[in-house]
């Protein structure tokens, strides 16, 4: 019996008259890698924000490792040991790479250990050459990588990534894929993404969102060949 690390039941989010997330039931096992896909406005990001505490759902529940976390603040969820990366690069621009990652490690470890962990993750992500550079001066791909380091440095058991590959070069994407695979050795990973290429390269199970609800959930190859999914992606009503 593998532990369920993330579960939502009847998760619903309405903005005024718009239902952005509609009765989503979702389950994720430990060390599972799951991609959330769907066209723009399908409700992936709303779902993501409800799970990470950036939004409080209108209805429904969120559980992590069996504990109800509905309505928790992001910092409370993160404190459980959840690593979160938002859609746009969300980093401290005026601080150096090392400082950024150190701050993330310091939340869970003492000063000395935090430094050691930051150093080691910088090595693993091949950021050594720019460790003392301010984030504001780095290219987009490098910033994404630093943010991944921020997420990974504290050894999370659940990692939530919103479009980690957006705007990256092919080479960067390859490295990203590698890192994500490495993460799944210890953690469950949820990736919100609409780059099909990237999803094919890393995913096994994907969950397809459409109009706020889960359309289907299956292995990536079967999803890709599903006529309904194709129709949704092409904008036709299924």
């Amino acid at each position, binding site marked *: 019996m593998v532990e369920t690390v993330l579960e939502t039941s009847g998760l619903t989010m309405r903005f005024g008259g718009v239902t952005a997330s509609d009765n989503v039931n979702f389950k994720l096992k430990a060390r599972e890698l799951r991609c959330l896909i769907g066209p723009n406005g399908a409700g992936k990001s709303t779902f993501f924000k409800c799970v990470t505490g950036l939004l409080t759902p209108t209805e429904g529940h969120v559980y992590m490792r069996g504990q109800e976390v509905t309505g928790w603040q992001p910092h409370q969820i993160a404190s459980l040991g959840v690593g979160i990366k938002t859609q746009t690069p969300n980093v401290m*621009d005026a601080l150096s790479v090392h400082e950024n990652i150190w701050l993330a490690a310091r939340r869970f470890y003492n000063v000395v250990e935090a430094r050691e962990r930051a150093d080691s993750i910088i090595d693993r992500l091949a950021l050594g050459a720019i460790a003392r550079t301010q984030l504001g001066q780095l290219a987009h791909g490098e910033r994404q990588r630093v943010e991944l380091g921020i997420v990974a440095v504290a050894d999370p058991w659940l990692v939530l990534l919103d479009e980690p590959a957006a705007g990256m070069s092919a080479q960067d994407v390859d490295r990203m894929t590698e890192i994500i695979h490495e993460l799944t050795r210890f953690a469950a990973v949820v990736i919100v993404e609409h780059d099909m290429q990237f999803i094919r390269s890393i995913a096994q199970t994907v969950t397809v969102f459409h109009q706020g609800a889960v359309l289907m959930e299956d292995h990536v190859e079967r999803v890709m060949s599903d006529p309904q999914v194709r129709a949704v992606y092409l904008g036709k009503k299924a």
Partner: protein
Amino acid sequence: MGRSASQDVMITLVVSAMLIWLLPLMISTYTLTVLVIYGMLGLSLGLIWGFGGILCFGQAAFFGLGAYTYAIAAINIGESTLPMILAVLVPAVFAALLGAMMFYGRLTDVYLGVITLVVTLILFKFVNSTAGPQYVIGNARLGGFNGIPGFQTLNVPGDPGAYIWGDPYFYVCAIALVIVFLLVTWLLRSSFGRIAVGIRENEVRMGLMGYDVAARKTVLFAIGAAIAGLAGALFANWGEIVTPNLFSLGQSAEIIIWCIVGGLGTRFGPIVGAAGLAYLKFMLGQQSMIDNTLVMGLILVLFVLFLPRGLVPAVASLLNSIFGRTKRKPRPRRMRRARHG
């Protein structure tokens, strides 16, 4: 981060000892005392704004609260030690409550500005309308517009008859400023300070890392208020009267101008800005050709336009480029001032 902590402390001690020795030879200690007090007040806002990203339009509220707390406590208690402690604690507790209300409500930048401004106005209006005999705390009449004169001023702890005033009072204030400065240095070097800077840079990210941003901002806000309260109490002792003007928006405006002119994101900048501009104001009072307000306004506008980082960082980078120790590229860093509140 270039220097080690002990170097930093040594430099601070040597420089301040030099200044405490040299300055009284040029400016009368009575005037110097108030410059030192304003320096401390500038530092209090410089800490929360420059390092915490909290732009408070009402730092004068804590200054005034400290001064009034001291005056009221001194009238009721007599001996000055406990009133001094209260003058630090009361503004800190008040700020903690106010900060918790604002930060847990996720109020940021402009909204934060409005709330702090409004709270200052409320305090000002309240204190200003307490002239009637019904407004009494213990033996202290609040006095309304005219303020509270005639309270016990600072004495040697334990000996209410031994007043500290004149030159010794200057040394007390100067040493207090050095101690506060060192405490601020230590705070900023600690994890708490580095996390505060992280919050200034990106609140959402720090929250996603698991930091309770609201709690940390509240604590920092309260620390800033405690320093402002101490400055207020020292000011009350210096002026021997407290008036509602301490709470005024004009006073708040001046503190902000000091920080901008001196330089945000530095510890030294707000102190230099405060002392420099207060001295300029004092000098301008001795002439009548040009209106003082006009000069202050022009200084602020010109700094925002042409030197938004302030004097100290500008001078520092100038010195760096002349006596450049390292070959690092000059970094076109512009602090994102208070973007996140």
